[in-house]
């Protein structure tokens, strides 16, 4: 019981540290690819401390509540995703619960941003939902392929099976295809470079974030760091066999992240229609073929 409580407290903190480290790392790597020097790796932490001491405005109760609810939902989500062997809540619900808990964060931000009464926010949210519809189509196909192959909706069961045998990405053709498709949509789920039309600063003044300042922005940065961690950890748990100890798990997510950054640093921003067309093209096709193969094999 005691160990469980410690796990519940520690896991979101670990996720936060990893996420914030990755955000700093991403800026540094991006800068080097662009032939710049770049900010120090711990710059996001400096920014966050600074933001907490800055003034901010509020547009009403839901404006505050939505963002708190959104971050709380993300923290709960982390407790369901195994970090190596640590997963305090994984016996309260499996992948289906994870799939639905993932909705809380964007919805919370959307209702919070909606009350800001700024069209830039609304346009940003509208883009976010369209983009989400874009990547959810392949994402659901991928998750279904995994659940069908392992004949289970429990993520911890899926990880344990891989620990006993092979990484699922190398264990069969359909799961390999599903893994590739996941990797292709990962930048869209994270809102990284070619898919950053949701928060495009030059077009819609950072979209959903436009009315946030001070501590609100700090909360959003935390949320972003945690989301970064969640998408990567889920990928490692589903396809790269999870890990038996913390260091291997960390190395795995780091490698996936750096490969992702290298690919995405060189792309220019897409328009929202182009993004959806891309997501419903190759990634969906690959995921669909994967799912069809799981039903045949």
């Amino acid at each position, binding site marked *: 019981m005691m160990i469980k409580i410690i796990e519940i407290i520690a896991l979101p903190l670990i996720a936060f540290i990893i996420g914030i480290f990755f955000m700093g790392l991403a800026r540094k790597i991006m800068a080097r690819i662009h032939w710049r020097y770049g900010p120090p790796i711990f710059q996001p932490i400096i920014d966050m401390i600074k933001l907490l001491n800055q003034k901010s405005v509020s*547009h009403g109760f839901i404006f505050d509540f939505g963002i708190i*609810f959104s971050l709380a939902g993300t923290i709960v989500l982390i407790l369901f995703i195994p970090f190596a062997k640590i997963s305090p809540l994984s016996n309260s619900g499996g992948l289906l619960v994870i799939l639905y808990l993932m909705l809380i964060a964007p919805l919370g931000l*959307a209702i919070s941003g909606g009350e800001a009464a700024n069209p830039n926010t609304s346009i940003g949210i509208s883009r976010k939902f*369209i983009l989400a519809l874009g990547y959810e189509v392949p994402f659901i196909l991928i998750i279904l392929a995994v659940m069908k192959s392992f004949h289970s909706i429990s993520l911890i069961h899926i990880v344990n099976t891989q620990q006993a045998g092979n990484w699922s990405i190398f264990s069969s053709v359909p799961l390999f295809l599903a893994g590739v498709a996941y990797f292709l949509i990962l930048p869209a789920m994270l809102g990284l470079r070619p898919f950053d039309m949701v928060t495009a600063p030059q077009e819609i003044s950072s979209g959903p974030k436009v009315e946030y300042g001070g501590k609100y922005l700090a909360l959003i940065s935390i949320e972003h760091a945690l989301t970064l961690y969640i998408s990567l950890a889920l990928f490692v748990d589903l396809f790269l066999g999870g890990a038996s100890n913390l260091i291997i798990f960390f190395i795995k997510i780091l490698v996936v992240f750096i490969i992702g950054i290298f690919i995405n640093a060189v792309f220019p921003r897409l328009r929202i229609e182009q993004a959806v067309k891309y997501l419903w093209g190759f990634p969906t096709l690959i995921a669909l073929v994967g799912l069809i193969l799981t039903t045949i094999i």
Partner: protein
Amino acid sequence: MTLQLILLIGFGGAIVTYFAGKISSKLREIFAVIISLLLVGMVIYTYGRYSQEILKIGFLDFEIVFTLNRLSCLFAFAITVIGALSIIFSLSYIKGKERSDFYYLMMLLVNASMIGIVFSGDLISFYIFWEIMSWSAFLLISYTRGNALPAGMKYIIMSIIGSAAYLLGISLIYTNYGTLTISEIVPFIASASPNYILFLLILFFIAFGIKNAVLPFHTWLPPAHSEAPSPFSAILSGILVRMGMYGFLLILYIIVGLKNFIVLGKGIYSFHYILAWIGAINIVIPTFIAMLQNDSKRLLAWHGVGQGGYMVLGIALGTNLGVAGGIFHIFNHTSYIALLFLVVGAIEYRTNGVRNLNSLGGLIKKMPVTFIGALIGSFGLIGIPLTNGFVSKWLIYKSLILEGYPFLAFAALIGTWGTILSLYKFIHNIFLGQLPQKYENIKKAPFSMQLPLIILSTIIILFGILPGIPLKFINNIGISFGLKSLNVNIWGITSETGTLNTLNIFFALLVACIVVWLFFKIGKKSRKVSQEDNYAAGAHIPVEKYHYTVDFYAPLYKMISKYLKDIVDIFYYWIAGIVESLCNVVRKIYSGDIGTYVGYILLFLAVLIYIYLG
């Protein structure tokens, strides 16, 4: 005697209320509320007293049988609760409108007839109550006249087709077996040939599918729901349409039985598999059509069609998880769709009937309770964890995945995203964004409107956190259908292939919310600003024009709207057009001119003479 007494109070109360209205409107309202609450109390009283009552009627030697089993008890409970809440909501909504005596009469009549349907133990009294329900619903749909008349006509024409199919089905049963009492039919059906059962099932599928608005019989629903008075829309979408689901459950699981319908057909052509696919298609297309709507009630109406798909999908599978999920979803849907329609009703009431999503905005500051209702209702409809909608969907998905139907599961899961997009638009365009100046002085909804909203919101959250309360009861229904028992706990379901514990999720979310809130409190206090104090790149804020609502998902609409036409509706109108032009041709024969008629007679005689001579 209890069942007959309940029906007597239901029908008698409706008529008494009508005449009370002739004396004074206060008296009528008191009567209506008391009767609807009395019915709730009596149905609760019947809990656990499952029985059968037989009423002999001299006419044609028919016996009228009333039965009460677990399924009808659950349905009766939902009917009476939604009925009572809608009546309470109507108190302010219908006040001062003309023909309100008639309105209350019809509302109570619809309620009583639905109770009659779930209590009937034979197919003929089922039919009688079914017709009373259909016709009183028709009168209520077209209550506001104007646009409501064609909507009502469309509904009643399709209803009559359904009734015809039903009559054909029961006359087939009667000629073969000589009885219409459900408990007596069951042993006969068990020994009937599969083709005969299939034919019966198709007939009843048409009869109940039209009421349940299953594709391709859904076309009456969107106009009817959007034109009906809002409290009745709540009943219509919440429970009246779901009488079709009751019919499905009755015919599939009580009359035909699980063992007999699951074996019909082979492989991908088996009856239950095709039914499941109808359910899946029913989820995807309507939820995406809903996204394109600009009328708040029409948007919800399309979701009413879409959510029906989950129920059909659940019960078509014939597994214990699926059936429990399907039945649970019927009642969850009742709670949140009724809530959302009542929210729209409250908005209509305060804005003089505005339903256009593009001309509202910012009402959260003026109607906070209504907003909370809309938010919880939407979360239930989407199926966010900790609402009841999540639990029933979870059961259905799990059943689909474990039974090995990933493509059905895909259709069901992607429907969720259609729901999110359209309901965010619903909430955003009504409650969020900028408040137009004309609504500056709008008041919050009166208490008689807020009370139903609060009760329904509580139900959604309560059964989302403690789903075991209704699930234990539903599990017993499943057992009575011959399904394996589920391992139900108060907080969810335990099993080897995946456990659900909503109570843990609730506490985790609560603690996380408190922690984040404390962190939020530590930061510098924020300054409250008005909606005009807003970032506009340094420009002046254009009053009345600073709200992004029209074509909310414009880039997506451009991509998908050409694929989302209601082809079935267009097809029906095409048939209606052909019938009309045929009738016009026939009408030309009757020109109304005596000379022409004399000509017809002479022509006819000439033909006769020609035949006679030839």
